[in-house]
């Protein structure tokens, strides 16, 4: 792990650029962005009305970019990721991967879920081989590839272990190896570290950054943890809640690998937290007013709970 960045490398918080302007400048002429989300909307039918989870989402991700989507719980960020993955259908709008429209799940976009989703009937190395087997690799080829990626997550000596023998963090590393072994165009990560303890998460942030530096995969990463987003992403997209809309974008320009506890990471986090706080308050108000509880109302208006959380994620 590198030491925290010295003052000479300090990127002033004013350099955070916002919005579409930035996207346009990043586009390489003539080359399709890796991912384009165009006018995507999604609503769920509740008892009496349509509840908009996502409303007119437009998003472009370039080859090799590491993008985090951050938003309060219930803002539809997981729904957006599922739509990109092809596991859910949007009500309207399209998603394009390179030059083809997404229609259903595909091996070019592998998802890593909050829980590792490893198969208990297979041992570690066979779990990593799973997708390769479906792709039609023969036994020897897929074993070699699987071991290569297990080495990348430093778990090759656990190749014959059963899934239940691994810790939560190890399981998630196997899940990452399993996804990478497919050699997808894009990794979609749905709060993959949120169920882990802080130390394990810290290790995995470091490991994921190294993997990204090595493989330069395009990554779309959903999280509610701002510190995590700043630690990992090139670009952070803030989703507002009910309906889920893109509220703001931030570019994170800090050297890698970054440390969760780095002072610059903390600085960015605080800045982003300010943007998000209004949204969190909205959620709190919405959830707590339902009980018409006076105490809760006071908490909402004084912003007490939100303040204490600044920088540490929500």
């Amino acid at each position: 792990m590198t030491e925290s960045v010295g003052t000479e490398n300090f990127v002033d918080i004013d350099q955070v650029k916002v919005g579409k302007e930035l996207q346009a400048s990043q586009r390489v002429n003539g080359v399709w962005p890796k991912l384009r989300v165009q006018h995507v909307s999604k609503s769920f039918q509740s008892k009496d009305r349509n509840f908009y989870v996502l409303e007119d989402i437009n998003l472009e991700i370039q080859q090799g970019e590491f993008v985090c989507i951050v938003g309060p719980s219930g803002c539809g960020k997981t729904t957006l990721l599922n739509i990109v993955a092809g596991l859910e259908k949007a009500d309207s709008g399209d998603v394009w991967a390179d030059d083809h429209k997404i229609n259903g799940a595909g091996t070019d976009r592998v998802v890593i879920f909050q829980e590792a989703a490893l198969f208990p009937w297979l041992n570690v190395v066979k779990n990593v081989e799973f997708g390769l087997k479906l792709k039609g690799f023969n036994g020897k080829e897929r074993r070699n590839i699987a071991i290569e990626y297990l080495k990348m997550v430093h778990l090759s000596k656990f190749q014959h272990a059963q899934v239940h023998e691994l810790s939560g963090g190890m399981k998630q590393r196997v899940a990452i190896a399993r996804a990478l072994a497919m050699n997808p165009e894009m990794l979609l990560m749905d709060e993959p570290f949120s169920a882990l303890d802080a130390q394990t998460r810290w290790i995995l942030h470091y490991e994921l950054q190294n993997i990204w530096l090595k493989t330069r995969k395009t990554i779309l990463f959903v999280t509610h943890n701002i510190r995590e987003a700043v630690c990992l992403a090139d670009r952070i997209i803030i989703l507002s809640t009910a309906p889920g809309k893109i509220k703001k974008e931030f570019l994170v320009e800090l050297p890698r690998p970054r440390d969760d506890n780095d002072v610059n990471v903390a600085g960015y986090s605080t800045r982003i937290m300010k943007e998000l706080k209004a949204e969190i308050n909205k959620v709190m108000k919405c959830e707590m007013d339902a009980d018409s509880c006076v105490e809760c109302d006071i908490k909402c208006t004084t912003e007490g709970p939100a303040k204490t959380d600044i920088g540490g994620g929500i």
Partner: protein
Amino acid sequence: MQSILKRTMFYILFIGIWEGLFRLGIWPEYVLPSPVSVFKTLVHGFQNHTFLIGIAISMKRIAIGYGISIVVGIFLGLLIGRVRLFEETLGSFFTGLQTLPTICWLPLSLLWFGLNDRSIIFLVFMGAVLSITIATDAGVKSVPSLYIRAAKTMGAKGWKLYLEVIIPAALPHIITGMKQGWSFAWRSLMAGELLIVCLGLGHLMMIGRELNDMSQVIAVMIVIIIIGILVDRLFFVKVEQRIRERWGLVKG
């Protein structure tokens, strides 16, 4: 060691009391034979191959009937577990059918297939198939949707999704259903063989009855019990143990 000792003591005592009752001579030998004559019949039955042939014929029938019921049961269970239409129709139908004792299929089976092997195989099939279907259905429904979503993003589609994910994930349930199905099949087989003249173990018991040879009846009963125990211990207990270890339900 303690428990083995206790068990041995129990069996010695059990056979001792049996022999004692026989010696008292209250009942004629065709009602209560001595353990010694049962043992002799057992040895003799294996020596002149009648028991071996009986076992072979019975095992062949159960292998066919039970084998078909595994294939059909898993297939139907998958259909009911995954397709809403089949669940709403076939699902409740099968739950109702399961309340019917298997032997009640005998008259139907006799009219369909006649007094022969196929009739017994049908009984065996009916004995096991519903248990396997219902257990597979339960297993399929308990597969975490996370596994299916994960598999889909790795390119699992159609029958590969079933073969590589849904069936393995439902396997603990399927094995439980197969175990229950086996015991039902075994019962149905014996019931069928008792009622249809057909060689086989059940038939050997009926021969014993017709000859007033109680020691043969009991000797065959012992063979049937031992086969039941062997299949349970050598197959199902082992398989269940392995699955439990692999799934991490039991440590070590």
